[in-house]
């Protein structure tokens, strides 16, 4: 009986001590599941995910034309022009939508004032999508100039890992800057 009461006390002490972190994890997991539920269906696929993918493909195509890789874009497909046979399709996992869900939900879950964090969320989201554009552009260039094996490595391993690392770094950076803003510091000292 004593040990049961003791262990209950330890669990409640643990929950009390790490309340903020536990709240973060619970809100984050529920948020990701809900957001995935909202995005992973045919209607959202046709009306939200696909237009985002097309927009990203459009930007990548324009940049590639400027940097000396002439191509034509049709929907979410890029095709090399002027003798370049390389073709690339931007699929669901390459549009940054699911990575964005993780990034945004981490901000939703972090317990800091909305008025301040919305700016950092937007900044991080913008930066994140610039990096994703760099991924698409570099993959087209690698596909054009190097072997299929090199393309597969960059596509499946290098960029996936890099994007996760960037997401983590951008989130830590933004969250740290946010927690240093005068309004948050004031709130902390009041508490």
């Amino acid at each position, binding site marked *: 009986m004593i040990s049961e009461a003791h262990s209950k006390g330890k669990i409640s002490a643990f929950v009390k001590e790490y309340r903020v972190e536990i709240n973060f994890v619970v809100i984050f997991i529920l948020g990701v599941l809900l957001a*995935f539920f909202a995005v*992973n269906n045919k209607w959202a696929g046709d009306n939200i995910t696909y237009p985002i993918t097309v927009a990203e493909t459009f930007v990548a195509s324009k940049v590639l034309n400027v940097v000396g890789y002439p191509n034509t874009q049709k929907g979410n497909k890029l095709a090399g022009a002027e003798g370049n046979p390389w073709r690339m399709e931007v699929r669901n996992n390459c549009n940054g939508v699911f990575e964005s869900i993780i990034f945004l939900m981490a901000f939703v879950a972090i317990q800091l004032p909305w008025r301040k964090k919305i700016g950092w969320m937007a900044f991080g989201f913008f930066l994140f999508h610039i990096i994703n554009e760099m991924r698409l552009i570099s993959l087209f260039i690698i596909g054009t100039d190097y072997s299929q094996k090199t393309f597969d490595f960059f596509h499946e391993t290098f960029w996936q890992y890099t994007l996760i690392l960037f997401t983590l770094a951008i989130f830590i950076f933004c969250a740290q800057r946010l927690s240093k803003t005068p309004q948050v510091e004031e709130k902390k000292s009041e508490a």
Partner: protein
Amino acid sequence: MKREELYAKTPQILRNILVRALPSVVVYYLLWYKAGLMNLWGYWLGFLFKGLRWLMPIHYEPTAFFGTIRLPGGRISEIGWNGNQLNITIAIIITLFAILPHPNPKKALRFVGWILVVLTCWQLFEIWFQLYHLSISDDFANRQKIFWEPSVYFSVIHWFANFDTMILRYWMGFGVFGMALLLNNIVGKKLD
């Protein structure tokens, strides 16, 4: 390490991403692709599957896991799942381990042990789940020319398989690391 101390080290953690995590992951990927770590890890998981006799028989061959399925009429078929897909989770765990400070080597080693336990359990489940999802899918049924009809059960399994493919495959390293940290803290405090 106390929470406040860890939060105070945030700038150092950001620096550690470049200084410690990136080189560690480069070494890991060299071992994974060039030194046969992928196959070593694959055979290890394949060996563990031999003990899980109540699941479908699963074995590893370079570079994929294969599940054996008994079809109606006694026919046998195999489905495969690419073993390379396990690499991101491991890379994320190495990243997190490298960026967080570990003042005590003995405790750090114990933590690595917990990471290996949780990682192995997660990847065994993930491989089995993905192969199971494939085995009951319309795609597989069509290829084998067997009758298939949609069901709520399959829709639920399909949803979670998509969730794994789109999100968990890339991000579960954080979950595995967090779970290992929790177990290490709970059990570790009893051992100390």
